[in-house]
């Protein structure tokens, strides 16, 4: 008897994009070779593919596992697993593919190692994962699309607020919607930073405009307040542009079509 030594090349790759994340595991089935049969087989554990993690958040991946499992003798259930999801290889198959959705790293899976080790297989029985291709699952793409559309709305709002704030010297000419838009934002700024007097001055001025009255602040006070608010909203806009660009980049990295609403919102922010 001789114990088979598996010298698989474990070229672990980062599972980005649709390119294969893992190529040629070598034989994952490690057995005692009796010459006329294989016994005491164990499924070797390797990381077949990385989970999808974006901005520190794990997302469900769709793993396409291409494999060869030429093996006869006893029937055995071996497969792949990602967290609680698993699927089994077809015994005897060559160049076959199974698709599995899961949120965690992908590993070989043997639900009953003690049973497997008690089985007998014909010489030459082997299990080789040729490639694993990682893509965001349909559910993940839906989540990302929702995030993109939400970010598009936030970015559009941030752009509008910034554009509105830049025009603070014409408060008296604004319509009610425009005034209310800035008023709501100023109220939240005041709530978050009650010590900032500039926010309060601008909020008072907007309230005066809504009541059809001139601002109580002096022109200098109003100018200082306006520039402070513009700087704050510009900083917020820059931050939102960065968030939106990261989402667009994520679509590109996974070879998915960019979300139209988000790219339009980014273009609008760029013109502001």
């Amino acid at each position, binding site marked *: 008897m001789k114990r088979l030594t598996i010298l698989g090349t474990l070229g672990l790759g980062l599972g980005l994009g649709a390119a294969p994340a893992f190529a040629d595991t070598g034989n994952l089935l490690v057995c005692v070779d009796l010459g006329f049969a294989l016994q005491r087989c164990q499924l070797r554990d390797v990381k077949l593919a990385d989970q999808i993690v974006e901005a520190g958040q794990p997302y469900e991946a769709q793993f396409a596992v291409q494999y060869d499992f030429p093996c006869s*003798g006893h*029937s055995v259930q071996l497969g792949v697993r990602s967290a609680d999801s698993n699927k089994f290889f077809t015994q005897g198959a060559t160049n076959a593919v199974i698709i599995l959705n899961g949120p965690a790293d992908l590993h070989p899976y043997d639900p009953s190692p003690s049973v497997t080790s008690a089985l007998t297989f014909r010489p030459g029985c082997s299990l080789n994962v040729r490639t694993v291709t990682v893509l965001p699952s349909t559910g993940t793409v839906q989540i990302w699309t929702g995030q993109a559309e939400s970010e598009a709305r936030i970015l559009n709002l941030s752009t509008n607020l910034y554009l509105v704030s830049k025009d603070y010297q014409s408060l008296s000419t604004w319509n009610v919607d425009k005034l209310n838009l800035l008023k709501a934002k100023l109220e939240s700024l005041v709530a978050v930073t009650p010590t900032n007097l500039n926010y309060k001055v601008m909020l008072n001025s907007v309230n005066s405009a809504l009541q059809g009255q001139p601002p109580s602040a002096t022109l200098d006070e109003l100018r200082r307040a306006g520039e402070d608010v513009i700087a704050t909203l510009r900083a917020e806009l820059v931050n939102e542009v960065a968030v939106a660009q990261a989402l667009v980049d994520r679509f590109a990295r996974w070879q998915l079509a960019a979300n139209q609403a988000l790219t339009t919102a980014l273009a609008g922010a760029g013109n502001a």
Partner: protein
Amino acid sequence: MFNKMTVFASFTVAACVAGTAHADGVDFTPYGPGGVQWTVSVPGFVTPFNYGARTAQAYSVPYAAGARGGCFVVSPQLPVSHNDGTGNVFPDFYSTWEAVINKRQTPSAIVFTLQVDIQAANNGPVTTLRRQVSSGQYDFTPIYFPTPDTILYWGDLDSPLANPSVVQAFRVHKDDTIRVSVCDLAPESTIDVRHLVVQTIPDDGQ
């Protein structure tokens, strides 16, 4: 006048072996839940004595006036990888026997012995079981009356696989190894050993 009978070997190919036999002469098929049936054919036989000859179908030991002692067909050691259970061993063979015996007696000589050696795990102790195959199990015919009180009988036994008359049953334990032998062929007998078959099956299906 007595004409010595010429025995022609029966080259019936056993049909129970699934798949293609391997070059080393040991094949197996799954047997029951978690069990294995090993089938050892001629290339897998160990033949420590020169009593016979290998053909494509059998190890053939020809007629001889004297006895052929010792185990002349031996299998490789076959492992039990499953949990404790039961085992059966039987040979697939064709054999002839002849003898002059008294009219009042029934043929009951020992023609050959089927031996099973079960070795416990880690080169543990060996348990040896022996089952003698008697001429009484043969299909025999009175050929000639050498004297008024004696008869020359000739008989043959073409054992299909799993013939209950030659099955040796025993207990097996995980990591045992099993070796099957055909031993001690009687005078004026022949045997063609085609296969040695070992079945083991776990009690719990694993």
